């Protein structure tokens, strides 16, 4: 077995067309052709770091301000989960906790593990890394739930001085963090997971 790259070809990640490596753009769909290249991991790390930097204020700062006759109360993501637990909405609390904390934190860890294992050439099961990559690409966007909760409440709950809900600054940082980590996961070229790094393994493969 050999790869398209080894055969002097390049695969278009948009339409699946095989072209000669000399081509810069795909003749079929016009997308830029990129060979699997570990330098691409620089972009993964850049988005990853920016995503973490945005995730911190997203969790510390309030995401929602509730104004009622008794005054203004601020709530953070974790604070919202705690409130839901107090009201006995365990299922909804679990959804928010998983989407806003469980998914982003595990995504940061999985991306770092994938990128490091590729860079350092760790011997890890490729199928396992492949499944992990597919999983984070699939679930990453669901972290947006809490942003939409705030948007829906802020738009609907507007009854003058009686009660109104406004988004806190934290929700912008949180939304930014979700977008950046989605970019990070998308920049990770899955072909690098299966790349054979050393010359020795290439020789044994051909026998």
């Amino acid at each position, binding site marked *: 077995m050999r790869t398209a790259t080894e055969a002097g*070809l390049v695969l278009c990640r948009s339409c*699946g067309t095989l072209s000669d490596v000399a081509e810069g753009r795909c003749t079929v769909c016009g997308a830029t052709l990129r060979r699997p290249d570990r330098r691409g991991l620089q972009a993964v790390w850049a988005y990853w770091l920016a995503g973490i930097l945005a995730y911190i204020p997203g969790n510390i700062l309030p995401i929602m301000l509730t104004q009622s006759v008794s005054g203004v109360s601020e709530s953070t993501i974790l604070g919202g989960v705690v409130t839901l637990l107090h009201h006995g909405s365990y299922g909804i609390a679990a959804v928010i906790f998983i989407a806003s904390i469980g998914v982003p934190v595990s995504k940061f860890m999985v991306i770092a593990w994938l990128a490091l294992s590729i860079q350092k050439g760790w011997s890890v099961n490729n199928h396992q890394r492949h499944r992990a990559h597919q999983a984070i690409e699939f679930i990453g966007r669901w972290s947006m739930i809490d942003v939409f909760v705030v948007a829906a409440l802020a738009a609907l709950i507007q*009854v003058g001085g009686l009660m109104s809900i406004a988004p806190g600054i934290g929700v912008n940082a949180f939304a930014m963090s979700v977008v950046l980590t989605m970019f990070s996961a998308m920049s990770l070229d899955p072909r690098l997971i299966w790349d054979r790094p050393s010359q020795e393994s290439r020789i044994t493969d051909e026998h």
Partner: protein
Amino acid sequence: MTNRRATIQALNERYVACQSCDALWPRPQLEPGQRARCPRCHSVVLANKTRGVERTTALMLASLVVYIVAIAFPFMSMERAGLSNEISVIDAVTILWSNGMGVLAITTGLLILLFPLTRVVMILVLHAVVHRRLGKPAHHAFLLRIGQMIEPWAMADIFMIGVIVSLVKVGSLARIEVGPAFWAMSALIVFMAMGTSATCRDTVWDMLRQRL
């Protein structure tokens, strides 16, 4: 130019490479309904979905119809102490905007209104014209490429979960009712998901490659 295209066509008629692991394989001949997996990483290398073009066209057309209902009709209403407020999805975005919540208004507007519409229209137009010889293949390829690229960013499905969570959150504070647009939006996410799974990218890209 012609020579270069002929080379690419010949190459792609004989070989297929795995999108996940780059392994190069002789191109399998698939019957409708069959798909081929990469022996190395087990990803689907090539699929030939049954009636992909027709089913996608129908489902994306249905999506467009319910999308129009979803933005034109009231989405939710709330009532508390005699004061009530009824909003559509477009109202939601404009209320956020006019109350100085610009970033959230733009984020929401793009992710739940513009991106889903763009995706539905692009995939619909492409599938409606691709098997007739209307328009240029390059334009079709552009539609499909953007339609594919936008897929993870069309977040109407996630928005609906967010709405359900917010209903639970304020259910004790105010009386909240859902309007026809809520059900239309629910139908939209079902039709869009079905349309996405009915789409056979390989078949369409093949058609476009052959028409180069």
